[in-house]
């Protein structure tokens, strides 16, 4: 469903963030992207919806080449890619409901969105999603009154109301406690399954990734280093991605949790 071919990003400073990355994601697959800080995980995700312009290479979503789209076409393509952020990136001073509905901005006109006159179908869907993520009672609260886990749930609802084909998820659990992290990861993966969505999840926590996803891709210095199932992540593989370290504890923990 999503094909990435020879994707390269060179920043104006000369840093090569991505070097000819090839990746193909079938319908409904949830993929974890792991790798050390600065490996280009965030850049890769942002090159897909062109928040960062790739230098060369192509991204094709459902047969449409995204890299060559003009601004109108790009906006239409972005509607089909929901994005979930580290630190949530909610508009802090707007209400939970406004934040969720902002996911529909690509579908409604300027004045409707300015006056907050969203179609009833969007409002119904917003309530349904808030109920699904367990925040129906918070609809009228301002986003900055919520806790970290609650904010990320709003972020998930905002991404899903776009009715996307693909979720781009950037470090969803980086600022959450271990329990909330798991709940959020579980929620994202469940929702992907329910709706048959594909997802790319950038994640630091290897153990957490192994618990929830079907496929793991390792990125190192902008190059693909590993592509396989979670149980193929051996200490050797982790060393090849991250460098020398004692990995036994990381992997053992997963085994215990699975048992």
């Amino acid at each position, binding site marked *: 469903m999503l094909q990435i071919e020879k994707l390269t990003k060179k920043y104006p400073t000369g840093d090569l963030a991505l070097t000819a990355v090839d990746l193909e994601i079938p319908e409904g697959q949830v993929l974890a992207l792991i790798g050390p800080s600065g490996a280009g995980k965030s850049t890769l995700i942002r090159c897909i919806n062109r928040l960062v312009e790739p230098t060369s290479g192509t991204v094709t979503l459902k047969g449409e080449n995204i890299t060559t789209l003009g601004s109108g076409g790009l906006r239409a393509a972005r509607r089909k890619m929901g994005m979930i952020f580290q630190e949530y990136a909610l*508009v802090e001073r707007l209400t939970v409901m406004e934040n969720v509905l*902002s996911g529909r901005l690509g579908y409604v006109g*300027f004045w409707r969105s300015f006056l907050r006159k969203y179609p009833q179908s969007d409002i119904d869907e917003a309530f349904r999603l808030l109920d699904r993520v367990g925040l129906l009672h918070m609809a009228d609260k301002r986003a900055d009154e919520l806790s970290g886990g609650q904010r990320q749930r709003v972020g998930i609802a905002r991404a899903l109301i*776009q009715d996307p084909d693909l979720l781009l998820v950037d470090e969803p659990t980086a600022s959450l406690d271990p329990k909330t992290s798991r709940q959020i990861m579980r929620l994202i993966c469940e929702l992907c399954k329910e709706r048959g969505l594909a997802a790319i999840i950038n994640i630091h926590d290897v153990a957490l990734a192994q618990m929830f996803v079907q496929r793991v891709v390792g990125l190192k210095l902008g190059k693909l280093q590993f592509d396989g199932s979670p149980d193929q992540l051996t200490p050797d593989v982790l060393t090849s991605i991250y460098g020398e370290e004692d990995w036994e504890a990381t992997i053992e923990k997963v085994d215990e949790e699975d048992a």
Partner: protein
Amino acid sequence: MPVSENSTGLKVWQIRDRNQTLKRWFGYLLAVAAFMWCWKQISDVTTWYFVWDAPRIAADIGSRAMPPRWDYMGELWVPIWDTLNIATLGTLLALIMAVPVAFLAASNTTPSKTFVRPVALFIIVSTRSINSLIWALLLVSIIGPGVAAGLVAIAIRSIGFCAKLLYEAIEEIDVKQVEAITATGASRWQVMVYGIIPQILPSFAGITVFRWDINIRESTVLGLVGAGGIGLQLSSSLNVLAWPQVTLILLVILVAVVLGEWVSAKVRGAII
């Protein structure tokens, strides 16, 4: 540098070593010397007779100025109302012009950094650099004496101030919120309304009441050059040496300014 060892081998830490301390004291010495020299220059060109005379003159004027001429108040209601209107409408007019200028000047929202931004920055600097009294002086000769000249003078003087503070607020917004809105497929204007405006609204409100507060003070003197408001009465009372009237006018200005501060403090407290 500040770490050294004494004779017993102990490590001693001081915030500055001896040379730095000496340099510092030499700097202080220079500053004091410069101050004393300037003092001497000013003192040489002062006519000390007038200065020694000052307390007597002040007491004389003070005694003539007291008590204030309360019945003059009847003639002040309209001018003070004009003054408040000049301040309020001038602030509004300034904001209408300052908001677009601020968006054009902020480096993250400007359409062009090489062409548009310098123009916007020039507008900000040029309107800010001239005092409202001087703007009023110019405008009185252009559009004639009266409230209109004062209003426009206040508005022009405020554009730069408001636009500068506002564009700094725009440049300090959290880019992730803007990124998130962009990622939904929102248009440029939708990104502005959802991603940027909510973030700068508190600063906008703060800047507005702050400038309004300043404008009340500035508009009280505009009448001195014929641009309407209570300054006109002040100037004519001063010209005929009607000291009791001057006292009353100063009292009225004081009350207006205090009220303005009180209102702006309340508004700021409510919004932020």
